[in-house]
């Protein structure tokens, strides 16, 4: 079911785009970027609802009305919850409105990741596995994919930009600068900052701060360690997320009549 509905269509779409780009050097890199953008467009209604819901909730948290309620019932948790729900009802907000789109997106994101990893197939077992996912309309002459990108990168291997002036015995950057991994950390951080609403609550703020710091580092570690095709996907996805978050923030500010920062 998973393969039929999610993974196989994604793998074959990726191969089809790769073929459109000429199946040569750079083609697979461009295919990853275009495919990631396509998936972003397809899931846009979901991410839009999720981000919008997050923004509305953040606005409520920062509203004077909510802060007054918090102050008034700070010693009565149950009453505070009741008032919170009442406030949501008054404003016509479903507090779980942002969760469902997130849950629906989740298998798509995992499928996208798996499709990219499987299509790169740099080892015999991976290629054997890939061969069972390819539709007959995809020409087998495409295999193996040309993983070269930007002249120095093999998308099936971790990326390191060779820097002849750096001694090779220096840890981490001695074998080359992990440019994509660095970009992944930066873009992940920016995207988290842009799409995660600030919380006025102590626990929520701490949690948000932890996520905005540790998750970019963790994703950056994945990008540093695994095939650079995955890092390219992270960068493309993050950049598109940043653009989307930025546009939505502007739209809400414009709608609310606030000056944009």
């Amino acid at each position: 079911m998973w393969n039929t509905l999610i993974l196989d269509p994604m793998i074959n779409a990726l191969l089809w785009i790769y073929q459109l780009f000429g199946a040569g050097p750079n083609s697979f890199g461009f295919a990853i970027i275009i495919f990631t953008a396509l998936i972003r467009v397809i899931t846009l209604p979901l991410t839009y609802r999720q981000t919008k819901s997050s923004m509305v909730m953040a606005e409520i948290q920062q509203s004077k009305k909510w802060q007054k309620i918090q102050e008034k019932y700070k010693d009565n948790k149950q009453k505070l919850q009741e008032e919170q729900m009442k406030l949501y009802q008054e404003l016509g907000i479903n507090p779980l409105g942002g969760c469902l789109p997130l849950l629906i997106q989740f298998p798509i994101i995992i499928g996208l990741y798996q499709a990219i990893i499987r299509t790169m197939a740099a080892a015999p077992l991976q290629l054997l596995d890939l061969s069972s996912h390819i539709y007959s309309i995809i020409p087998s002459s495409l295999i193996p994919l040309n993983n070269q990108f930007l002249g120095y990168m093999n998308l099936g291997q971790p990326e390191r930009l060779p820097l002849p002036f750096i001694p090779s015995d220096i840890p981490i950057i001695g074998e080359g600068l992990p440019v994509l991994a660095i970009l992944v950390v930066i873009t992940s951080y920016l995207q988290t900052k842009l799409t995660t609403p600030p919380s006025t609550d102590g626990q929520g703020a701490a949690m948000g701060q932890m996520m905005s710091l540790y998750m970019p580092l963790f994703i950056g570690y994945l990008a540093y360690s695994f095939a650079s095709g995955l890092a390219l996907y992270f960068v493309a996805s993050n950049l598109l997320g940043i653009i989307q978050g930025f546009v939505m923030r502007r739209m809400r500010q414009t709608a609310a009549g606030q000056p944009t920062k």
Partner: protein
Amino acid sequence: MSTLPHPTRRSILLLGLILISSVLLAGCGSGGALTAASWPGLSIDDTNAYLAYGPTVYAIDLTTNRESWHYPPEPNRTASFFASPAPSEGGLVIVGGYDNIVYALDPSTGGDVRSAWIFEDASGNIIGGTVVAEDIVLVPSADSNLYALDLSTGDPVWTQPFNTDEALWSAPLVDGNVIYLASLDHRVYAIDLPTGRELWKTEPLNGAIADTPTLAGDLILVGTFNSQIVAVDTERRGEIAWAFDTSGWVWGSPAVADDLAFFGDYMGLAYAVDITNGQEVWRVTVDGPVTTTPAHRDGVIFFVTEAGTVYAFETDSGKPFWTSNPILNGRLLSDPVLSGDTLLVATMDNPCVISAIETETSATRCLLQFEE
């Protein structure tokens, strides 16, 4: 202290999802040295069977059925082996590592077998088996180069390695002073052994070639991912003599006996084709993909399937001689190897990693068992 507002709960949910996805993402990665990247590499000489599988290379005495030695003495995370080991007449066993290093194992060094030399210049995994031709070791690498090394020292013999356009996943075939090399770049190359100079190459065959070519008289036979067996004429500098269409990708190469070529495809069909004209003689449906080169002995051809079954067919008719019963409970992706009247089969996903099957009776015993 206030209650948890919903944004916080959503943050926790998001964090949970990210952590789950992180585990899934990390689990799907291929960065770990011990992750199985390929299937076991199996080979034999007069006294031992050799198996390269994951962190260890094993030598099994074929007379006593006991382990002679293994390398390295203790597995480490940096080295793993999948390419078939190549025993040499001088006693060294050459094995290419998935860590890009070639090891010349010297069993005469005693209990802890050591490497007489290592070769570290390759920048790609060694997936195809190494080949020893006289005093030269040929090493195909996924960095798309074929290296020629001195057997006694490991020093390069050619001024530069022979380069193709894609990764090399199969051992080369040596016939006299000519090397025949199949590449994932869709071509077969003929190379001068002493110098490493290209003699000729075929036109692109529209599909990658993942196994060693088979020599049949003046013809070189290869299976391709373009769902074909292609016969290349060596006397006509690599012109295509004929091509036979199969139902699925051909991962293995043909076995040849009595002017017939035997091979299987990924769709689970076993074929016999007349090598003089490329016409089909028979075909049989088996229980799973065939990704290996079959083995032949005394009028019987042995196919193994990914589903774990070994089939023995009469070569001239394709009639069943026997079918392994029960199946071996594991994926059979390595080429079966004949040792006298015994067929050795390496199994994945099964504690019994090498099974020995009597070719006459199909009686099966376990030659090498891993701890569960």
